[in-house]
Every structure is written in C-alpha cells, then in structure tokens.
C-alpha cells in the first residue's frame, strides 16, 4: 500500500431522491474499504423515497484514520444540477466538479452547474 500513503480525498455525490445517489455512495464506501482505505461517510436524504428532495452522499477516503468529513470536498458529482448547484462552492480550489454535458432540456442562464464552477476548479463532463 505504499503508493497510497497520503491519500485523503472526499467525494460528494449529489442528486435527487431516487437517482441512486445514496446507492452510489454506498458502493464507493465498500469498494474503498475493500481496497484497504479508511472510510468515513455521511448521507443526507429526504423523507420521500423518490421524486422530490435532495440527496447528498459524502465519502472521505484516506490512508490514515480520520474522524470527520472535511469542510471542502475534492470532487463533486452532480446527478441533478438543480440540487447540486448550491454545493458547487464546497469544492476546494483545483478540485473537480463532474456533470452531465448533454442534458435533454434547455435551461436558462445559470441553470447548468458548469455556470457555478469557479475558475479555480476543474469542470469535468
């Protein structure tokens, strides 16, 4: 595991209830744990199983044990721009925001998360 020393990466996955946000976070946690990393995570979800409301799954993967999430995430994955836009600011400088660049419906200015990725961060389609 020597090449993994010093790993400390926090991924936030944000979507709408029913998109598979929490499930994706779950897979990531287990995969990282099986690889031998230390994982700490916290999920937020609304009462409805599907259709309304924001879900966020934050996973911190590190080589040394940590006891809380970081204030800033390294990567934000947006499964639903409308929900993820308020969280674009939580990505650190030179971190990445992952989003869908071929959505099906038109949005007005600012409706797409790429509008909210500050110059210091890396937009990733």
């Amino acid at each position, binding site marked *: 595991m020597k090449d993994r020393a010093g790993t400390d990466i926090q991924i936030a996955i944000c979507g709408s209830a029913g998109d598979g946000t929490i499930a994706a976070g779950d897979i990531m946690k287990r995969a990282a744990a099986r690889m031998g990393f230390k994982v700490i995570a916290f999920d937020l979800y609304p009462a409805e199983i599907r259709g309304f409301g924001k879900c966020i799954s934050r996973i911190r993967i590190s080589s040394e044990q940590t006891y809380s999430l970081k204030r800033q995430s390294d990567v934000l994955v947006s499964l639903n721009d409308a929900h993820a836009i308020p969280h674009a600011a939580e990505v650190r*400088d*030179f971190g990445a925001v992952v989003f*869908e*660049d*071929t*959505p*099906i*419906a*038109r*949005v*007005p*200015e600012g*409706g*797409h998360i*790429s*509008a909210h*990725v*500050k*110059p*210091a961060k*890396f*937009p*990733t*389609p």
Partner: protein
Amino acid sequence: MATALHHVIIGTGSAGFGAATTLRAADASCRITMITMSSLPFYNRYDLPDVFRGQHDWRELLAVAPAHYEELGITLRRLSRVVDVDGVRQTISLAHQEVIAYDRLLVCAGGRAYVPENLSDAVELMHGFGSFEAAMRVHADLPKGGTAIMIGGDMIGIDLALTLLDAGYRVTLVTNQQTFWPHNVDGDERDRLLAALSAKGTKVVEDNRPIGVTQNNGSMPARTVTLEDGTEIEGNIVMSFCGLAPTVEFMLGAGVDIERGILVDPELHTTNGSIRAAGDICQIWHDEEKAYKFYHGWKNVRVMGELAARNMSGAHEAFDADAKDQLDIDKDGNIRSTFWAH
C-alpha cells in the same frame, strides 16, 4: 432600478482577456461573462512550446491566477461550446442546452489550424498544437530526438520548430503558400529566411505538394507523408501549420456578415448593432485598400480586444490598421516576428 449591462465575450484568448479587463476597468458595475470551449482559463498560446522545455503543469501555464477572475467579478464559463447566436433576441445557445442573454457581445473565438482540403482524409493522423491538451499530446507522441514533419510552416509552426530544434528534436518543413503566414514573403527574402531555418537544422522541402499522410504500424517512425512527385518523407508526427481558418460556424445564424471571417468596420462593429468581433476571427475594413483584411499576431489581437472593449463602453476608436508586420533574423540566427512580439 436599472439592471447592470451584461457584456458577454466568446473566446478567452488574448483578445478576450484583454477585452474583459478593459471592460471592468471602464465600468465597475457591469456584468462580464467570458465563454470558452476549453477547460482551462486564459493562457498565452505562444507559451505552449514550453512543454518541450519541461513545462507540464497547467497551473503554471495560466496567465493569471484563477482567483483574479473572481476579484475582477468576471464570470468564466469553461467547457461551454457556443452552438448558436441569435442576433435579434440577443441570446447565445450553448451545447449543453443553456441559453444566455447578452446586452453586448464580443466575439473573439479565433481560428483553428487550416488543413488543406486535399489532406482532409488524413486529419486524424495529424497532430494539432492549438491548445494545452494538444501540445501535451505532441510531447507524448514525439520520442526523444524524433522528427516532426510540418506542412506549411506559418509563424506558429516556425516558433515551435525553433523550440523543437533547440530541444534536440528534428524538424522537416514542407513549404507552401502559407509558409511564414501571416507575413507575405517571396523572392530573396523568402530564400534568406528558409536559409536561416536550414542553418538551425531544419530540413526544408520546397515546391513539392503533400498529397497524402499514412500511418506506419509497428515499425518506427509512425508517419509517412507522400509528396506530389512521389517522394516519401518519414517522421514521428505530422502537423499542419497553414495559417488559421476563423471559427465562425456558430455565428452563421446570428445575422452578421461573414466572408471567411466576421466582417467588421474599423471600430470593430459587425453588421449587428450589439455585436463586435476582434482578433483572428474578424476581417476589418481598410478604407484605403477598399478591402476587408485579417490582422494576426499576439500584439494586434490584444490591441483589438482592448479597443473593442473601449468601444463597447462608449468610445469610438478606430483600429490602427497601419502597423507594419516585420520579419527578420536576429544575431542568433532565430527568426523574429512582430507576430510574436511579447
């Protein structure tokens, strides 16, 4: 309460960045949005040859720190490709389905490397050099001491060639009408310049048109360029440096006049009242020559951007079209051009 004017700039090269900073200096309250297809903020393209001098970190390449955009209050939209501009409704449509409304628009999206049509089948086998990603790819695909075959040899190519030779690579130049573009040289001066290139180690091939590029599998080197008389040149990569073709496709529905580039008057106004153009993408009316002309080169492009911005803020300045383009050889035998004066 009046809403602030929204200035939108398409293109974050030298012209676009110059325009954005000038606009902000003139008006502290207006909204400024810059749009680019690239994933990186503004960097100077003439610095790209530095990838062959060990410069591989894009963060070092940026012309200004990312925080600077926020300080200036400039909204930077990256990975945003403009697919349409509606000059009547004053909106811009982006490829990812977003629509942006503007009050004033400045188009400085520049150009892309022109590839002669008879080589259009071989475009996938050629390497470009128009972006950081392209430059890194060239660096990855060119082995140590390898050969780059350049077709044409415009000033962007010549600059890269001199860097490559300096860094221990080899360059073969197949000349054509666009050699030394945008300068127009012929006769003795052309011979002199080609001799200077040869003196630096370039293999110069003249009067022989490339008609095909093929890939060699397995055995090195990876590419062969076939010339009109049947000669074959081998190299590791092939690059087309035949000048820039303005990227005007997204402006075709905007209602502005376009010939090869966007046609503008000396104040950089297009035929649409709220749209201006600057840089490699525009052709400016020259009253004495009665023709629309392109003006290329780092210096011209920056000047155009800043001038357009001043005019967008209410000034009425005309672009000084009489700056002479000079091309000469310095004491080290390097070709120096006002195209690159930086």
